[in-house]
């Protein structure tokens, strides 16, 4: 009985997991992100973005004549599941994987890819990271096989503090972050960099709260209020930012919010609800209403086709740069592409030059500070049909965003 069942299962497993065959001339990129469960809306958004970009490349003849295909793989934001999916991708002959949601997933994948490439020379796999911002990925844990197009959280803080340097009205800053590695690095970087650049600024509070567990932020708001802060810096995302802002609006707290992810899915809706007009700021590598014409044209075309705003300008940079690197290397061999990417300079979507630092495979690019609220006449793009949108406040040049790295890269 058991033998029968095991055999039947095995047979089914084969047909389901290994049965797909791919044409030899396509260049497949495994997209490993949540496509079911709580994170699905984010993952679907990313998938549509990458598929749009693949179509864009294919319309221009693909990469070195290879048609680009995005293979969606659902990881449910679970590191173990991600490794299973990565294995699946490798079995299907995929040599490039891209992922963004969850630093825990990123760390697991980076480690997995590195081990896989060491144990299977000749079958190397490259990992393109478009959104996981844990600095460790390009520092202690850095790997030759990992490239990151999003700015690490330390880079964003470098940019933010360089902006704050020129805003004398900021006097008392309150830090509130989620209690996990990302939130902690935001907090630590903020303390360190503010102390260096604006020693006169007082840090009146430094809060870590558990990740995605708080249903009522009013106690925290009471503390912020009691501290007399004029600005709050937070790396919160998801419901933690939405609930935080909601509680602040309820209690009538008037401060400026400097955030990493207020623009994430659902964020704009929440801000509009609270009525905090141009009090919430975000640090990103590009914004829809930036005023740079090619980027605005892209945004318009993208919205028309995909019916969502471009969350990931970095994904555009990633895919276009991948094509450029392959063409530079005249090969789609992962090792050669990786070597071509190292140190490569590239004109980013929102204008200005970025480069892929050879030391740690971190991409550096101009960073924007923008605020969310009512739009001016020359700002056509709103978010989530709220009628409000992002308004550019400041642009931090690439050179102003560079942070040192501790990476000791092992090259093959």
């Amino acid at each position: 009985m058991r033998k029968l069942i095991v055999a039947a299962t095995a047979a089914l497993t084969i047909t389901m997991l290994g049965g797909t065959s791919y044409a030899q001339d396509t260049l497949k990129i495994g997209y490993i992100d949540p496509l079911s469960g709580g994170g699905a809306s984010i993952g679907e958004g990313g998938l549509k973005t990458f598929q749009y970009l693949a179509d864009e490349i294919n319309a221009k003849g693909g990469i070195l004549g290879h048609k680009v295909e995005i293979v969606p793989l659902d990881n449910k934001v679970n590191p173990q599941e991600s490794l299973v999916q990565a294995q699946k991708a490798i079995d299907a002959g995929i040599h490039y994987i891209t992922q963004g949601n969850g630093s825990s997933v990123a760390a697991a994948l980076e480690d997995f890819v590195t081990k896989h490439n060491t144990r299977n020379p000749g079958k190397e796999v490259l990992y393109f990271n478009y959104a996981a911002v844990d600095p460790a990925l390009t520092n202690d844990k850095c790997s030759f096989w990992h490239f990151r197009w999003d700015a690490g959280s330390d880079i964003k803080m470098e940019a933010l503090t360089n902006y704050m340097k020129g805003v004398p009205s900021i006097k008392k800053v309150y830090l509130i972050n989620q209690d996990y590695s990302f939130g902690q690095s935001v907090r630590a970087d903020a303390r360190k960099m503010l102390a260096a650049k604006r020693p006169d600024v007082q840090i009146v509070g430094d809060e870590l709260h558990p990740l995605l567990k708080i249903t009522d932020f009013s106690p925290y708001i009471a503390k912020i209020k009691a501290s007399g802060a004029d600005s709050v810096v937070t790396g919160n995302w998801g419901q933690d930012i939405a609930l935080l802002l909601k509680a602040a609006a309820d209690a009538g707290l008037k401060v400026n919010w400097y955030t990493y992810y207020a623009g994430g899915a659902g964020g704009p809706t929440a801000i509009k609800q609270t009525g905090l007009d141009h009090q919430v700021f975000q640090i990103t590598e590009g914004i829809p209403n930036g005023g740079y014409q090619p980027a605005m044209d892209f945004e318009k075309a993208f919205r028309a086709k995909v019916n969502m705003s471009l969350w990931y300008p970095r994904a555009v940079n990633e895919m276009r740069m991948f094509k450029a690197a392959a063409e530079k290397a005249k090969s789609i061999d992962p090792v050669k592409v990786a070597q071509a990417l190292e140190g490569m300079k590239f004109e980013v979507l929102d204008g200005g030059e970025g480069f892929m630092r050879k030391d740690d495979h971190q991409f550096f690019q101009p960073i924007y500070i923008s605020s969310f609220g009512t739009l001016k006449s020359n700002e056509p793009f709103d978010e989530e049909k709220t009628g409000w949108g992002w308004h550019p406040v400041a642009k931090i040049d690439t050179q102003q965003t560079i942070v040192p790295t501790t990476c000791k890269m092992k090259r093959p």
Partner: protein
Amino acid sequence: MSDTATSARDLPVPARGQSLRFYGIWVIAAIVLIVLPLLFSSGSSLTSFSLIGIAIIFALSYNILLGQTGLLSFGHAVYYGLGGFAAIHVMNAVTAYDWPIPLPFIPLVGGLGGLCFAAVIGWVMTKRAGTVFAMISLGIGELVASSSLILRSVFGGESGITTDRTALPHMFGWSFGPQIQVYYLIAAWVMISAIAMYALTRTPLGRISNAVRDNPERVEFIGYDPHVVRYLASCFAGLFAGVAGGLTAINFEIANSAYLGAVQSGLVLFATFIGGTSYFFGPILGAILVTYLQLGLTNLTTVWQLYFGIIFIGIVMFAPGGIAGLLMMHRPLVRSGTLGMVIPSYLLALVPTLVLVCGVILGIETIAHYTESQGQGNVIALFGIPFDATAASTWIIAAVMIVGGYAVARITWRRIVDAWDRATTDARDRGHLA
């Protein structure tokens, strides 16, 4: 392996054929485990088999609680996760200090990790049984999972702790780099653990656990403290869950807080219950099925969680014995040779039931696609046939299949009940049923 089956072995002189058959099952299982990767050698199959193997140990360990002792736990992954972390830390320590511990012994470390935690926290947890225990286990599970993010030095924050399994001392010249070697390691531990857990059911403690499951109050009046019994059972469950966790750590070379979480606890409950808690092999079936569904279903549909929920509710309501229970229901019929009386009604019911199931699937997928994709990509390819989620015809087809299928299926189900009654009456007449 059922209660009734084992008691047949209690006869003063156990029948020789019986014990031969008994050992035969284990030998066949071992052969299957050895031969499997030779038949299916792709990387994905090996990954799947490895995961299934781990899931089997995990589900069997869970059944020590649920099936053997009657304890419904919503926090079993705590032992599994802590076992995984224990294994990872020891692996790193072995590498760092050159201890002479080869990799194959690491799962034992995981087991000890699970056992230690069960020994400490289990005493408090098992004070109460029933639904209270269920809630407590849920609370403890949350507590440990949340604490794991605070105690960063042990749990490595949310990115977890990684290791390199090939850096440990090699054994039989195996580096355990290739997945096939890891598979055989897992297979060996599956055999060891399964045999150990089966043996446990046949010890005085195992039998008293059954008594505690059936009637904890009465157990107190035959000299046993049900609290101690529950405690010991949870220690063993923790031990084997830890072994499973240790194997996971070896398989993925990473341990993180997701190991300890509610999702993991929920999955093992699913697997065990769907497989069937009353028979030893039930959780094995469940682990195979659920792991397979988890790997396969998630690529086919985005609403796999809904299917899981529906399957689970169906099992709770209509087959509380799980798949194993359904299969074993037929044993008296097979023995008495009356199975043939029910088969035709099964075949008859198969067609309308399948129509009903397909209708439900079509309906769910249509709604899912309709709401998720709003405007584009509406075509669902179901069983190779394309359906348009926005077309009225699709909705009508689904509705017709569900209503029509149900109407016809009901009639055929009644036939099954009738046929079943006749077959069991016959079987009873022939002396194969109590």
